[in-house]
């Protein structure tokens, strides 16, 4: 747990919110074990041991035998920072509860299945850097029009326009706030590009959102 984390108490991530990814997986999601495509946002937590900061090293993950894993991947998302208690808010009112925006990185093992909570894939220490800072909400006029890029060693590997999210920021805040009461400082990572970017030991990764910031981290293990 990094004591300088920008996250307070909870980091909720939204999986499968890239329209192109959902379309590509549609036939898979009509088969076992899924049987039908998701009807609700697909959510997961990055727990507190994963929270990390801009500039920090991301530990290279080990498998259950204690050996280094072969492959890790990274995704990046806009992080929506909640500004006050948010309980059962409407979509129309949702953005009034946002204090600001930041960048969330999600380092993990490759996403192979969405059937069970991916504790073994996504909960390794240090794998959720958030930052570099929280940009006040009034400085970001249209968050749904932002674009998230991931670069590895200076080369752009992935770009996701948030216009291509299945569910908008306001819709997600409203839906999640009807499941759980959100508190100030809790962060929602609203969507990742469906194709996560493979990374290697020692890689330098930049997750960037214009007007929000660039989150820089280096993979360990080199």
């Amino acid at each position, binding site marked *: 747990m990094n004591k300088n984390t920008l996250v307070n108490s909870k980091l909720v991530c939204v999986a499968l919110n890239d329209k192109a990814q959902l379309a590509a997986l549609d036939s898979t999601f009509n088969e076992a074990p899924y049987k039908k495509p998701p009807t609700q946002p697909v959510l997961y937590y990055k727990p507190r041991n994963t929270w990390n900061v801009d500039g920090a090293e991301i530990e290279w993950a080990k498998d*259950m035998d204690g050996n280094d894993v072969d492959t890790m991947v990274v995704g990046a998302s806009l992080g929506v920072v909640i500004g006050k208690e948010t309980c059962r808010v409407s979509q129309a009112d949702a953005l009034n509860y946002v204090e600001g925006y930041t960048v969330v990185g999600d380092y993990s093992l490759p996403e192979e299945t969405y059937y069970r909570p991916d504790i073994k894939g996504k909960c390794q220490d240090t794998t959720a850097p958030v930052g570099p800072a929280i940009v006040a909400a009034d400085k970001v006029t249209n968050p749904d029009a932002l674009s998230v890029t991931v670069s590895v060693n200076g080369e752009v590997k992935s770009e996701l326009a948030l216009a291509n999210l299945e569910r908008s920021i306001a819709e997600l805040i409203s839906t999640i706030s009807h499941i759980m009461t959100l508190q100030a400082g809790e962060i929602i990572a609203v969507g990742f590009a469906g194709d996560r970017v493979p990374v290697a030991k020692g890689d330098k990764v930049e997750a960037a959102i214009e007007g929000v910031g660039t989150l820089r981290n280096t993979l360990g293990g080199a």
Partner: protein
Amino acid sequence: MRHARIIFDGRELDIDIDANDRITTADGETLNVALDSDQITWLPPVKEPGTIFALGINYADHASELAFEPPKEPLVFIKHANTLTGHKQVSYRPDNIDYQHYECELVAVIGKTGKNIKREDALDYVAGYTVCNDFAIRDYLENYYRPNLRVKSRDSLLPMGPWLVDTADIPDANALKLTTTVNGKVTQDGTTKDMIFDVPFVIEYLSKIMTLNPGDMICTGTPHGIVDCQPGDTIVCSIEDICSLETRMVSEQEFYGDKY
């Protein structure tokens, strides 16, 4: 020794409870009140709750009840403090659902930071045990990160307590009777002996993946015997030698009040 957090006489207090049910505050004051007094408001027993790990289908008979093969490795999902509430508090039933059930579970509370903890050392990392009721709403299950947050991350649907019992006071956490009553009628009658993955196994497993920290909790799953619960029902989840946890169900409207 037992440990709890209460509100008494307008004060929020950390208390110890001895074998004679005598209550002493952290400042050494003895409270002259009975444990079953309505003057005590019970808070969730872990003061600074961290990550809550919960196990699904961790009793073979419950797995068959749900038409699942017993798992080959633990099915773990994560919850946060918004779900917690205390003994003798309320939990809500969402509107327009058909099936919400309790899950009476033994909880191990982590007391020491650790990574790559060996099974034989695992109990050194456990501060104590308590009881939780890990409610589930089956209507909301979908086959994505199942059991999904809509089922398992709702406000108030993880009552816990009333107290923690020191690890040393429980020589074998896998030899305890576990029962649940609804409105006084026994609906669940099992034993922690039937747990598939015990606390030391789960600590070894989780700590291979990540660091465990004080205040993290492991809810170990529930045996056979789940029934639907309605507003107005009183549910008591009990584990022998640990504690009995009482919860009253209310409607969504009653729970959220002005925010409904």
